[in-house]
Each structure stands twice: as structure tokens, then as C-alpha cells.
């Protein structure tokens, strides 16, 4: 391990332990890491955004690209929103251009990609010959119809309609359960990744320091609790 690698491992382990210290309670170490992360991410985003505008907009505009000159001028109109009542309406022009382009480009294929093809996928054949597939396809069909019906409020959900609504609710609960399971998978991955440098040297040498820090916090909390109860006893 080179000195740089050792330093990197130590730093990443220290940052991970400082972030996790929040699990005990809010503390200055956690706040330091939080602020560094938020500040760094925002700073990075601003710099990259500015560089992107400079390279793709300002430079070509400065070289006489008429399309880019127009785009930069329209883009700058966004800031007139800050210029008072008389000029602020100009900012609607770039917003309407953005919305118009977004809708124009996206809408043409949206219906097919996200609605008709998905609808078609729920209309599966029940005559497949395979019992498991027949069950699966029936379940999808019934599940979709009942789930959609759960959100149909124009009739009172009574009798058989109430059963359909209930089935829809159970299908959704299955979906939420699966989503929770995948969520757990993701959160554990997020925990594992920074834990990797902590469980091996040199990062593991920082663990006793972190444990000592938490133990000190617990001891201080205990002392403060004791002092409080003593005060209360003295008062009473």
C-alpha cells in the first residue's frame, strides 16, 4: 500500500464512521461530514453547469453561431423574473419554449411506450397449456382490474364491488412489500460500500476510536441525566 492509498483508506473510513455516528445521535462530526457532502455536491454541480453553458452556449455564440446566440438570449430571459413586475413576464418565454419542446418531443411516443404497450402486456392469453402461466396471467389480469377499480370513486364499494376493491388493495400491498424488499437490498448495498474500507487495515484501526467516542457520549449523557435527577430531587 502506498502512502496515498493508506491516507485515502483512512480518510474514507473516518468519513464513514463520522457519518454513521448520527445513529447514536446528532453530533459535530456528523454535521461536518454532512456539510462537506452537501457543499461539495452543490459546488460541483454549479461548476459543471457553468462549464456546460460556457462550452455549449457562450463559446459558440461568441463565434457567431446564430442559433446559439438566440438560445443564450432566450435563456437569459429567465433571470428577468428577478427584475420586478414590469419585466418579469419575459421569463415566461423560455419556460414556454422549454415546455413546448419537451411536450413536442416526448408526447409523440409517450402514449405507445408507456400506455398502449403496457396495456397490451396485461392482456395475456389464458390458453397457454401451462398451469403456472395460466395462473400468472389470470392473476395479472384480475390484479390490474381490481387495483384500478380501487381508485374508482363514482360508485360505492359495496357487496361484490367491495370484494374487488379489497383484492385491489391486497395486490397493491404485495407490490409495496416487494418494493420494501428491494429497498432493503438497496440500503444494505449503500451500507456495505463504505463499510469495506472500515473492516480491513488501516481503516479498522479507527473503529476503537469511534467506539470510544460513542462510549464517552454515553457516559456524558448518563452524567447529565444524573445531574438533572439530582437537581429535581433537590427542588422537590
Amino acid at each position: 500500500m502506498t502512502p496515498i492509498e493508506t491516507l485515502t483508506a483512512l480518510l474514507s473510513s473516518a468519513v464513514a464512521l463520522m457519518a454513521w455516528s448520527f445513529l447514536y445521535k446528532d453530533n459535530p462530526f456528523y454535521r461536518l461530514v454532512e456539510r462537506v457532502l452537501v457543499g461539495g455536491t452543490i459546488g460541483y454541480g454549479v461548476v459543471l453547469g457553468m462549464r456546460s453553458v460556457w462550452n455549449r452556449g457562450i463559446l459558440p455564440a461568441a463565434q457567431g453561431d446564430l442559433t446559439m446566440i438566440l438560445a443564450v438570449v432566450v435563456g437569459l430571459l429567465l433571470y428577468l423574473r428577478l427584475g420586478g413586475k414590469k419585466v418579469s413576464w419575459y421569463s415566461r418565454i423560455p419556460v414556454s419554449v422549454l415546455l413546448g419542446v419537451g411536450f413536442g418531443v416526448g408526447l409523440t411516443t409517450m402514449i405507445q411506450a408507456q400506455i398502449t404497450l403496457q396495456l397490451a402486456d396485461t392482456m395475456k392469453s389464458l390458453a397457454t397449456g401451462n398451469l403456472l402461466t395460466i395462473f400468472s396471467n389470470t392473476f395479472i389480469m384480475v390484479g390490474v382490474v381490481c387495483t384500478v377499480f380501487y381508485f374508482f370513486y363514482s360508485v360505492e364499494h359495496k357487496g361484490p364491488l367491495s370484494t374487488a376493491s379489497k383484492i385491489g388493495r391486497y395486490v397493491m400491498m404485495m407490490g409495496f412489500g416487494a418494493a420494501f424488499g428491494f429497498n432493503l437490498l438497496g440500503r444494505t448495498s449503500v451500507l456495505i460500500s463504505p463499510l469495506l474500507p472500515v473492516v480491513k487495515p488501516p481503516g479498522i484501526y479507527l473503529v476503537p476510536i469511534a467506539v470510544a467516542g460513542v462510549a464517552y457520549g454515553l457516559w456524558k449523557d448518563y452524567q447529565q441525566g444524573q445531574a438533572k435527577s439530582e437537581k429535581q430531587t433537590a427542588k422537590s
Partner: protein
Amino acid sequence: MGLIQKILSDRRIIFPIIFCLVGYPLIYPIGLPLDVSPDTRAVYRAIGSLPAGSVIVQTNDVIFASWGELGDVAKVLFRYELSRNLKVILIEFGQSAQGTTLAEIFLSQIQIPADKKYGVDYVNLGFIPGEEGALAAWAKDIHQVSIKDARGTPISQLPIMQNVKTIKDIAFWMSVNVYGGILPEMYLRQIQLIYKTPMACATIGVMYPTIKPFVSSGQLIGLMNSQRGAAEFEFLSGILGLAAATMDSQSLVHLFVIAVTLIGNVMFVASKYGGKKQ
């Protein structure tokens, strides 16, 4: 009952248990079995069946916070694509612009074969702002939208880009993304539906259910699920990485959560029954 309830509801006890369950297998691997899902197998087969020299786009639409989940996915996919002698274009259409830097970081971390050169066999085209409009324009004329790569080299000077002018020159679209349905839907609308470019996706666990319907409908060829997808792909491709080594930790944590959920529900039912009796 009261003691168990106290233990299960105290995070000062739950979190150290989770840490031990995650940390122990990382130091002493257990070797629990890993089943490969059909969706990951489909991605593996689709990329593996591309002829050598084909151009593949691997989007890196990720953020720093998601790198724990998608870092291993991006790495194993990239290494596999190079091992199949494919030409890889890394690019980002997401909203954060962090994927470009993360791509550069992982390019510096992984061992790239000596015969694979930047600009010839792979390139990082960086962040393209403008989302759907930019993607549609990029698909029609790549050189018009991507003027320089992430390292500042004009793409007209890169050998890999000489024969790649439009989306029609791209054989496969692999979207590694953190944005759930938003970006895959955008890629499906602008790339898969219009140009019929085969497409697959890899995403974080929490977003997996939002994309899965597109696999069932046949719009996406396959779907990789977070670090588990990476582990499955490492297993299939034989490319060793960190994801497979972390699956023991995943399994132990999941077992623990199942146990805690069961105990919690049994206690809930018992207290409800006990309450009625009283």
C-alpha cells in the same frame, strides 16, 4: 415480551446488530449460494451475442449517493463489454452530471487490458444537458450535440467516433441509472421505440419495481437489480469483483429483517388477542 419489544424498538441495539451482520461476512466470507435471475441472464446473453467491434452505449446516469449500489454494476458491465471486444461509449443524460466524474473514477480504478485504448476502444462522452430534447437531437446527429468528450478532446479526433454518426450506428443501449422510471422511459421513447435499438437497464433496488413492467412487456431485454445484479453478472461472466463478495452480508441482513418482521407481527397479533381477551 416487554424486553423483546424494547430490544426491537431500540436503534442503539438494532444498528450494531446490522453492522455486525454486514461486517462479519466481509472479513470471514460464508459462501451462501447465489441464484442468477432470468433478467440478469438476459442482459448477459444480449451483450454477449453482439458481434465483436459493435458499438455499445453504457449510460452512467448515477449520483454519488447511489454509487454504492451501481458502482459495481457499471464496472462489471464495462469490463465484460471490453472483454467481448465491443466499442464502449460512456455517456450521461441524467440530471446531476455526477455520472461523468464517477465514470472517470471507475476508469482509473479498474484494470483495463493493455490492448484497449481510450478513444479507440472506449470513450467517455460526458454529461449532455437538456434531457429529452438533447437525447432526441443526439440520436439524430451525435457529432452535432457531443462536440467534446469528458476529457476535452473534440470527438472528431477520436477514432472510436469516426464511424459513429447517429444512433443507427449503435448496436445496444445499456442504461445504468438511478432515476428509476424517468430515464428508461425517456430512452424507450426516443431510442428504442423510434430506432428499434435493443435496450437493457440496471438500476437501484428501490427503483427496480418501477422498471420491471418494461421487461415483462418486452420493451427492455433485461434488468439488473442493484449490487445483486452486479454479483449475478460477475458470477455469469467470471469477471471477479467486489459485488459477489458482498452477497453474504446482504443475505444475513435480509434474514435478520425477516426474523424481526415475523417476531414483530407475532407480538402484534398476540397483544391484539390479549387486548380483546381483557
